[in-house]
């Protein structure tokens, strides 16, 4: 009466293949079945690699399992794994995401010689004085005067930005990009932000409006969800 669910289901579409692995059988069993299924597929070695998206449902796939899946699918086959999706996130991972995506709010002045370094986005209510430095793995929002150095995405995230009520920084840094204040005397700007301009391959400062146009997902959490 009860029809047995297939362990592996493969569907083709325009982007390539979607490979669904039943999440109720043991992983090892699924691998055996997967090997079988892969061998029976038609593959044309003269065409470009076929991209494969793996969906593992409610099964938790750790790094080791990911590697084994990737190796099995790609080795001796004409496939390229583009994503391994799962509905399940490890608690530690979730906590890390939360840590990295949360906003750290601080109310103080960052004075000369002081460094404030946070994981996630930084909302500083107060000034960054000349000689002071703020760093965040995410974005930096300064509700105050930014006179010192701000480094957004210091672990390498180039999609981050720096926004300030008043900007007259000594340096702006985003990921591995650095820009410095001009050598001539110039006044600062109000309500502006610094972002990496991909076309110019450098940091530019522009009106905060730029953010709504350029970056629809400014939350680090959304970034993580999309990039995995």
């Amino acid at each position: 009466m009860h029809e047995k669910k297939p362990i592996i289901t493969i569907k083709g579409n325009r982007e390539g293949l979607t490979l669904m692995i039943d999440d109720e059988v043991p992983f090892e069993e699924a691998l055996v079945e997967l090997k079988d299924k892969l061998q029976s597929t038609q593959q044309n070695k003269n065409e470009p690699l076929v991209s494969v998206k793996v969906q593992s449902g409610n099964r938790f796939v750790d790094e080791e399992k990911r590697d084994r899946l990737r190796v099995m699918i790609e080795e001796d086959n004409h496939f390229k794994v583009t994503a391994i999706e799962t509905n399940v996130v490890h608690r530690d991972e979730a906590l890390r995401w939360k840590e990295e995506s949360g906003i750290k709010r601080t109310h103080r002045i960052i004075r000369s010689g002081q460094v404030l370094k946070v994981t996630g986005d930084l909302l500083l209510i107060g000034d960054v004085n000349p000689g002071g430095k703020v760093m965040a793995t995410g974005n930096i929002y300064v509700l105050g005067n930014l006179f010192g150095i701000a480094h957004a995405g210091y672990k390498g995230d180039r999609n981050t930005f720096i926004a300030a009520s008043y900007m007259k920084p000594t340096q702006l840094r985003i990921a591995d990009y650095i820009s410095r204040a001009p050598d001539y005397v110039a006044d600062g700007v109000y309500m502006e932000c610094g972002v990496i301009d991909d076309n110019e391959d450098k940091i530019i400062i522009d009106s905060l409006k730029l953010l709504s146009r350029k970056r629809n997902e400014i939350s680090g959490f959304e970034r993580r969800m999309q990039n995995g």
Partner: protein
Amino acid sequence: MGEAIVITSGKGGVGKTTTTANIGTALALMEKKVCLIDTDIGLRNLDVIMGLENRIIYDIVDVVEGRCRLNQALIRDKRFDSLTLLPAAQTSDKSAVTTEGMKKIVAELKQEYDYIIIDCPAGIEQGFQNAIAGADRAIVVTNPEKSSVRDADRIIGLLEQEDMTEAPRLIINRIRNHMMQSGDIMEVDEIVQLLAIDLIGIVIDDEEVIKASNNGEPVALNPNPKASIAYRNIARRILGENVPLQSLEEEKGIFQRFKKFIGMRS
């Protein structure tokens, strides 16, 4: 029970010793019992500005190392019975004084005096740590120059980590009005806004200060010079009086936008 106030700046030569001598003198003029402590070991100056150099027998290191009692090292001022000076050592090893030693001396003096004014050496080394160790509050002296203000900011950051009874207060010393008007030096407002602490006084650059210090007679003893009035006003504010600040408001330039950041990659 008295109150200990440290006069500090970070940068050297901005007027810490001059300020200590004049605030001390002004407080004595107002009949307060005051003790000045020179903590600038190896570069003592306060005794010279006070004109008391020839009276020194013992110094602060002698006290710390137990060669004399605290009372024996205190020098009574020529003009006021209620004013004394604990001089720094000129030759001894700098490391002789510790924060603990300072705290003990200051605590003892607070029993006797209304105010203990501590002249801090430049820098943020041990001498600075010693000077602030026993203090209840701090006055930061700066000149209206970027480098001096930058160091003051650094010092304020360090002071904020200490548990003092009050936030530090600011003196802007050696103001030259014509330079402020022409925008060649930082404006009072700009400095106060940046450092974000209360201003307790501004003192103009005044030749009378140099003349007076050179004669071993702090300028505050002379009723007329502008700088003297400024120092006496600061003393009154320390006592809690509400003395309005002399206004130095200038018109600000128009803001221009800048977008020309110079890009580079690390």
